[in-house]
């Protein structure tokens, strides 16, 4: 078809008639040019209208979850849950002291130990000291498997450029023993807090690198997920932004945020979650944690990590990995 502007009304009408004649009803224009016989044959059974009982059965089958053989740990009265350490050993050390002061009986790490910050090997002894029970994030999965990138899930070239810088730095500065240990970590854990059973994952129960942001993770989706997983609460990380939702069913969904990088709010404090048994259900506190962020910035500069990362640690505003933010989270972002 010519892209030339039609000359006069007659030609315009003729062209419009041609367009309509070519796809009247539900026909595909391309069929004139490519025969669709094999498509029609393959889809002969498609298109059904189930009776009400059939629909109920199809829906029930879809919603049915599978049994999860993951052993249940606990019960505890109060635990600390954190993720996204990003090599921030100073933040992690402060967290260990804070959690002990608050009387947390067990500490759980939801993964992404590396990336962004300096000296990956300084994280490991802290995890041992704190008797931290960890699961794999996409970082651990990639490092243990010798993958070429972090599988962070970005598409923007600038985000991928910075993601590659931090991944390569962490890969080069982590010992083979540390990486092998990462490979031994489970992908999920189940923990009892009081009478409630918590499911701990990195991204989501479905995918290690699924982003669960507050403004794009709706209540009905979470209710179905918890039904399928037969859990009373879901705890995740991966996005770096913390949130907590009490669902209409009385269950809870929590993104514990990150202890390695501030949550893009213009303040240097990082976050972790303290979860405890309460009479009215699960108590969830997303704790702001001040630590020596200036010392971390100095270490990052000494390691020649990108100044963009240093700026985030000092200012509390993200400078990279912004593409994945949903509309609402973008609106409050400085960059």
């Amino acid at each position, binding site marked *: 078809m010519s892209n030339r502007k039609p000359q006069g009304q007659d030609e315009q009408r003729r062209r419009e008639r041609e367009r309509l004649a070519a796809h009247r009803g539900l026909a595909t224009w391309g069929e004139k*040019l490519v025969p669709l016989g094999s498509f029609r044959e393959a889809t002969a059974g498609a298109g059904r209208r189930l009776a009400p009982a*059939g629909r109920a059965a199809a829906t029930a089958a879809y919603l049915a979850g599978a049994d999860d053989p993951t052993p249940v740990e606990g019960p505890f009265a109060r635990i600390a849950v954190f993720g996204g350490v990003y090599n921030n050993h100073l933040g992690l050390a402060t967290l260990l002291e804070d959690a002990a002061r608050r009387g947390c009986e067990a500490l759980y790490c939801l993964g992404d130990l590396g990336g962004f910050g300096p000296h990956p090997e300084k994280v490991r002894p802290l995890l041992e000291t704190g008797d931290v029970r960890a699961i794999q994030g996409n970082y651990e999965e990639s490092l243990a498997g010798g993958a070429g990138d972090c599988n962070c899930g970005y598409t923007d070239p600038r985000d991928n450029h910075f993601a590659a810088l931090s991944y390569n730095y962490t890969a080069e500065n982590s010992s083979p023993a540390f990486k092998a240990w990462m490979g031994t970590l489970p992908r999920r854990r189940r923990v009892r807090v009081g009478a409630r059973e918590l499911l701990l994952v990195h991204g989501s129960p479905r995918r290690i690198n699924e982003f669960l942001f507050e403004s*794009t993770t709706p209540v009905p989706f979470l209710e179905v997920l918890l039904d399928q997983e037969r859990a009373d609460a879901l705890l995740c990380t991966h996005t770096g932004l913390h949130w907590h939702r009490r669902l209409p069913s009385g269950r809870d969904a929590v993104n514990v945020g990150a202890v390695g990088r501030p949550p893009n709010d213009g303040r240097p404090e990082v976050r972790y979650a303290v979860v405890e048994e309460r009479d009215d259900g699960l108590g969830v506190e997303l704790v702001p944690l001040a630590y020596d962020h200036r010392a971390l910035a100095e270490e990052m500069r000494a390691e020649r990590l990108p100044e963009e990362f240093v700026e985030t640690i000092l200012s509390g505003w993200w400078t990279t990995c912004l593409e994945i933010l949903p*509309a609402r989270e973008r609106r409050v972002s400085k960059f």
Partner: protein
Amino acid sequence: MCEPAATARESAGAAGPPRVALRSLDTLWFQVGGTVCNLACTHCFVSCSPTNHTHELMPLAQILPYLEEAAALGVKEYYFTGGEPFLNPEMEAILEATLRRGPATVLTNGLLIDRHRARRLRRLADAAEYSLDLRVSLDGYDAASNDPIRGEGTFERILAGISHLVEAGVDPVITVTEVYDDNASAEGKRRFFELLSGLGIDKPRLKILPVFHIGAEAERGGAYESWQRLAAGDAPPTGWDHLQCSSCRMVTDQGVWVCPILVNEPAGKMGEALADTLDSYPLAHPACWTCHVHGVSCKT
């Protein structure tokens, strides 16, 4: 060229095309503007135009039961397209109802976004618990490249719509198709980013889509070749999770289709209710080949 490969594909086709299971229904699309559009773009794979009534506008009353069923199935996000969604007089009411249940994205040509509508959309977004995103289509970084595709004078009108959104504090995503090779090149992207930053968008987002050689595009750019089909042996080792039909369905005024691409195919229709469509679907259409080869997802 590619003769041997073509032969291999065709012979493998005898075993039947691969089927994709619905892993989880995460994304629900609504053809809320039907196939009715105030433009008649020459690359439109659903051949939308002011006079194409293959699918009609969807009233709110028709959408509500699907939103209810979607919530029961745990749908994660909603997308609205057409045709032009803002031709639908109930579009803003539909968005308000949707945003009570989850995040929503509207794919629009931007022509009907004046200052008043942009402000109303901002208010809708501010009042909602979930994200509202707008995606405006543009097919060239200047009038000389855009207008032959989208219509005479549309470049300026699209930019006006984008500016109204930006003024209201709503940063849209810009959708660009590979109708020109240049659009997806590094230089092409640079020109688009330059254009958008000139409009006051600090954090420009481009969504680049390949063209589907069906509908109007089959006549403009040519149709699929006979070897451009998926065959039994084509399943990647990692499975089909990258294809959107493993996690989406499309609702039109006439029922539920497998995906947003095949809405003009009667055989793309899977049922009347979402519960009818939880089964697998064969990757038998040539357009499935584009999704597979390009790793396309229509969502942002």
